[in-house]
């Protein structure tokens, strides 16, 4: 071996947040390369997304063909909820779903060993191990729906409402991510949780409607147990300038609590990892 290469690798040049960013960037790069490996697949996925967004608008048109508002929500206001929903779906299907479903498989066949042996935060490695960059189409369509709604209403959100909405979007992402991570954590004990994950993604589908249109028990569940309200309704109310600040603070605290619980459960689950036999 060459003399110059002898000895240990020099010490890490960066730590903490910088190293998290470095790893996240590398994961995103490799995912993009992976997605581009199969061009036809990537193109097909992007087209499929466009069709899905187009058909998602149809129920709104049907409902509002008969009436002017539902539980106080106008068609354009609901379009904003649908816009946030489409945006979050892009994040869910573009990052969390493929990555976390891959983890469930890795837990089952034992290849999670290779993730856990890396000197990087395992949660970061598994959360962004597999991305679908073509789901950026969802993000663009989601924002497009929100802009369309405001154009139709003939007004624009104030900078304050826009900023609050952006912060609440981040909290919505934290909640979405935390729930997905909790489901994956269960895989360490139960091994097969694919259906639980699909149950979550199917329930998430209801977030395309404002939670206030659901009554009774469902509204309570979607606010406090599976907080769909935090994901789309609250950011939509914020951008419309209709959100009370106490609700905004409650939403932020709720998302932080969800994130911390998910992190705690994840770390506990890692200790229970039993790997798979050789």
């Amino acid at each position, binding site marked *: 071996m060459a003399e110059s*290469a002898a000895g240990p690798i020099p010490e890490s*040049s960066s730590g903490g947040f910088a190293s998290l960013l470095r790893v996240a960037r590398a994961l995103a790069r490799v995912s993009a390369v992976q997605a581009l490996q199969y061009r036809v697949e990537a193109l097909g996925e992007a087209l499929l997304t466009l069709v899905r967004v187009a058909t998602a608008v149809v129920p709104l048109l049907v409902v509002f063909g008969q009436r002017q508002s539902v539980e106080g929500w106008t068609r354009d206001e609901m379009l904003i909820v649908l816009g946030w929903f489409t945006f979050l779906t892009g994040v869910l299907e573009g990052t969390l779903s493929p990555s976390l479903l891959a983890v469930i498989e890795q837990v089952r066949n034992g290849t999670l060993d290779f993730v*856990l*042996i890396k000197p990087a935060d395992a949660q970061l490695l598994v959360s962004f191990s597999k991305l679908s960059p073509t789901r950026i189409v969802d993000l663009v369509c989601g924002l497009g729906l929100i802009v369309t709604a405001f154009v139709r209403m003939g007004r624009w959100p104030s900078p304050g409402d826009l900023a609050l909405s952006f912060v609440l979007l981040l909290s919505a992402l934290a909640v979405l991510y935390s729930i997905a991570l909790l489901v994956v954590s269960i895989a360490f004990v139960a091994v097969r949780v694919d259906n639980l994950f699909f149950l979550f993604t199917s329930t998430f589908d209801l977030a395309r409607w404002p939670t206030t249109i659901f009554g009774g028990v469902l509204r309570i569940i979607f606010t406090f147990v599976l907080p769909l309200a935090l994901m789309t309704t609250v950011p939509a109310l914020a951008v419309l300038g209709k959100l009370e600040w106490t609700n905004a603070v409650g939403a932020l605290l709720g998302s932080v609590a969800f994130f911390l619980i998910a992190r705690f459960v994840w770390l506990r689950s890692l200790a229970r990892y039993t790997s798979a036999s050789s």
Partner: protein
Amino acid sequence: MIDAQQLTKIYKVHKRPPGLAAALRSLWSRPTTEVRAVDGVSFHIEPAERVGFLGPNGAGKTTSLKMLSGLLHPTSGKVVVAGHVPQKRAHAFLKQITLVMGQKQQLMWDLPPSETFLLNRSIYDIPKRAYDETVAELTALLELEDLLGKPTRQLSLGERMKCELACALLHRPKVLFLDEPTIGLDVQMQATVRKFIRSYNERFQATVLLTSHYMDDVAALCPRVIVIDHGHLIHDGPLDELVKRTRPDKRLKLRFSREVEERELQGLGSVVERAPTSAVLVVTQAELQGAVQRAMATLPLVDLSVEDPPLEDVMRDLFAHGRAIQAVGT
């Protein structure tokens, strides 16, 4: 470099009889039994040692390796590797070790190995110059130049394993945990991998702990072996000592210039292989000298060699002996 004290791992395993009725019952009632995969194993390994970790299937080898690499938390006992408690998974610890599993792969299936290399470069934070040097070295040693740009799925098993090894060593680890690194490889590729592991160990003074079912791997690489069976340590010491202790007999290999009758071999030892112009006899250590002298005096020899029994036979006898002791004890 590695210190294990009373290392124990107990799994809770859900067991049920076969059949639909039992499967239905198991929906609400799941009795579990405890399996002691590793039971009070202690050993110490010095830096730069190459140690073979042997045992039959299910003996607890892989479980031990996974506890040493921090993947599994021991149920009890203490383990320190490179000055760290593995299960804490400190980054400073993980940067010093690597794990290669012959039956599993970390290379991304659809992409060329070079892409996984680059990802590992970021994760291990390897400076560009050191990375380029290491890749160049590994490429030369393992003859990877034509492989790194091909999608992994298009590589043969042997090519893939060479790339896996390179991928696992980019950060120049000081401790190598190798779990069946030559499984499924042809003889030539096995020899290449062995030679490479040895040269890495000597060049970087890296500690190597190897499990393998191929005794040739162990004989070629590991002066010391640790043997476990049913989770218990049953031998820790030099390989030749294990051979002598378990099978004190020798194999006398004879080749003749003409066909030799069975009766001409009588009294030399027990015949285990026989052809018209060759024979292999098993002779005890005490009778060896006499047998050699008699063979040279009475047989038309063209060649004579004395060998240890094959390691496969030694291990089979060792585990059979261990089970017999357990059977008597229970």
